[in-house]
């Protein structure tokens, strides 16, 4: 079987997300159920979730979620990890055996802290070191794949329909203040567990409905900064772009949205506020190669927040709902109504208009 990286995958898909601005914890059951009415947007070749705030007992440690082809690969990878990290806990990620999910790889998680001696020697800050280590494993170690690497968050993904994947990973047993979800519709690939969404790096995660046409231009640019796009899926490159713009360049999520879904020049020309016009022009001029074209609706997850964004032509659907301190995002209103039948407000953001929801200041994450 060819895995991803050998075949390029266009995809359709469904997305959903939920966040509590009060930082209230909710189990993964509701987000799993939200995917049920959107079943037909996926074809069973990929589903996945990201949960934030799910590992409070280990929140100081990076949670590495990994797929391994076999035991030998796992042993070799663990040897490699021990040279770089203190591993405070390693375990098999609990799953539920079910007929809908088959051919699973070995699925493990490691709670780790980078060794100070290694950081000092390499003169890297902790997050850069972890990001580089993830890149190294995913591009160089055959049969090993890190699919989640943030603190106090985790991605869970598989080949299957998303509602089955949620049950498979027993998401009802986790509690998070925000969740994102994805159902995948790749059209010309055998599908592989690593190629399901979310795509993550550190605490950044992306779920994506669409098919970006600027993939290769974006990839060539982002690979100059040490990122390695190993899977050839468009979503992977979006994750690295967001990491680069926000973590490395220090942009806000809103600025990053105005880079990847920059307004048309004629729309910028019509902007009446001179400071806003200047900001938009600046971002377009400095990061022209990170403009993402083609259809997309994405939810970007990060520590303490979510950002929903459509491409500027809005070639994919997305709706947002609110009720008390909760915000819901989904490809279809039906998915939101599953999570909250009585939303107070429901609307469709315009193309290129980011919707950013942060947990309130002062809430301990």
């Amino acid at each position, binding site marked *: 079987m060819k895995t991803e990286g050998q075949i390029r995958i266009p995809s359709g898909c469904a997305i959903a997300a939920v966040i509590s601005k009060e930082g209230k914890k909710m189990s993964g059951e509701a987000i799993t159920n939200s995917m049920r*009415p959107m079943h037909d947007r996926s074809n069973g070749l990929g589903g996945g979730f990201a949960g934030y705030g799910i590992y409070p007992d280990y929140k100081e440690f990076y949670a590495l979620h990994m797929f391994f082809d076999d035991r030998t690969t796992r042993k070799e990878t663990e040897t490699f990890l021990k040279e770089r990290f203190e591993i405070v806990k390693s375990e098999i990620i609990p799953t539920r055996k079910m007929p809908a999910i088959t051919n699973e790889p070995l699925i493990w998680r490691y709670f780790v802290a980078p060794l100070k001696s290694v950081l000092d020697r390499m003169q890297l800050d902790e997050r850069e070191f972890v990001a580089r280590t993830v890149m190294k494993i995913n591009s160089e170690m055959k049969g090993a794949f890190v699919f989640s690497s943030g603190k106090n968050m985790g991605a869970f993904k598989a080949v299957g329909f998303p509602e089955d994947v949620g049950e498979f990973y027993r998401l009802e047993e986790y509690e998070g203040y925000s969740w994102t979800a994805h159902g995948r519709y790749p059209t010309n690939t055998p599908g592989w567990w690593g190629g399901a969404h979310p795509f993550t790096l550190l605490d950044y995660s992306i779920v994506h409905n669409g098919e970006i046409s600027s993939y290769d231009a974006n990839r060539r640019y982002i690979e100059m900064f040490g990122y390695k796009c190993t899977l050839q899926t468009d979503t992977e490159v979006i994750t690295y772009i967001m990491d680069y713009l926000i973590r490395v360049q220090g942009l806000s999520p809103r600025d990053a949205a105005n880079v990847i879904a920059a307004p048309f020049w004629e729309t910028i020309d019509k902007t009446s506020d001179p400071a806003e016009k200047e900001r938009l022009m600046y971002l377009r001029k400095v990061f022209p190669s990170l403009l993402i074209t083609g259809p997309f609706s994405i939810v970007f997850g990060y520590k303490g927040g979510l950002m929903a964004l459509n491409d500027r032509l809005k070639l994919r*659907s997305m709706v947002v709902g609110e009720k008390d301190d909760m915000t819901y995002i989904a490809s279809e*209103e039906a998915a939101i109504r599953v999570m909250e039948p009585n939303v107070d407000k429901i609307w469709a953001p315009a193309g290129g208009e980011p919707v950013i929801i942060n947990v309130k200041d002062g809430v301990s994450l």
Partner: protein
Amino acid sequence: MVLDVKDLQYNEINEQLRAGSDDIQITGCCGQRFIAAGFSDKKIDISGIPGNALGAYLNGATINVNGNAQDAVGDTMNAGKIIIHGSIGDAAGYAMRGGEIYVQGDAGYRAGIHMKEYKEKRPVIVIGGKCGSFLGEYQAGGIIIVLGLSDDEREIVSNFPCTGMHGGVLYLRSDAKNIDFPSNVSAAEASAEDLDAVKGYINEFCGLFGYNTDEILNATFTKVVPDSKNPYKQMYVAN
């Protein structure tokens, strides 16, 4: 007859609708697609959120939704009527070629994209609220009427209306002075005769959703039509 569709797939729903009475109330709807696709008779009333492509290829039936609807309502609809007591998603009336769609609230992007008409077949969409970008994109026929009755601050229609329009007519209940239309269309204040021609549809809208027709008509309307027999001229290449 009442049909609870809570645990039914779209194909099961349509089978039961076909086998059911002439007047059916659907309850518990949550995202099932293609409801009443191709139906040529029956009256269907829906509570809950119908899924995408509601009434696709509709051929004469009447659908009433007591709330919002999702994307592609009335896709390629041929005849009949769809009434939405709420807002609709993107691409409403996609390639519609007959029948009428009445929406109380707002429409998303690309409402009326590629509507068309032929002889006596002339589709109509009336939107009570406001519209997203690309309203009437590639419109080839039919009538789109936008009333702008929702009370938010935004313009009655967002960016790039009538892109590639080459047939049909658009009415906006607005002077449209802040709206940029492409060079292939003409926008001008609608005359009394123009409004007379579409008064029946506005009257129908007002009857459905409880508005006063005279009050709605007592406003400036802008009429937009394509302005040449060769609307793509200069759009892609000089021809």
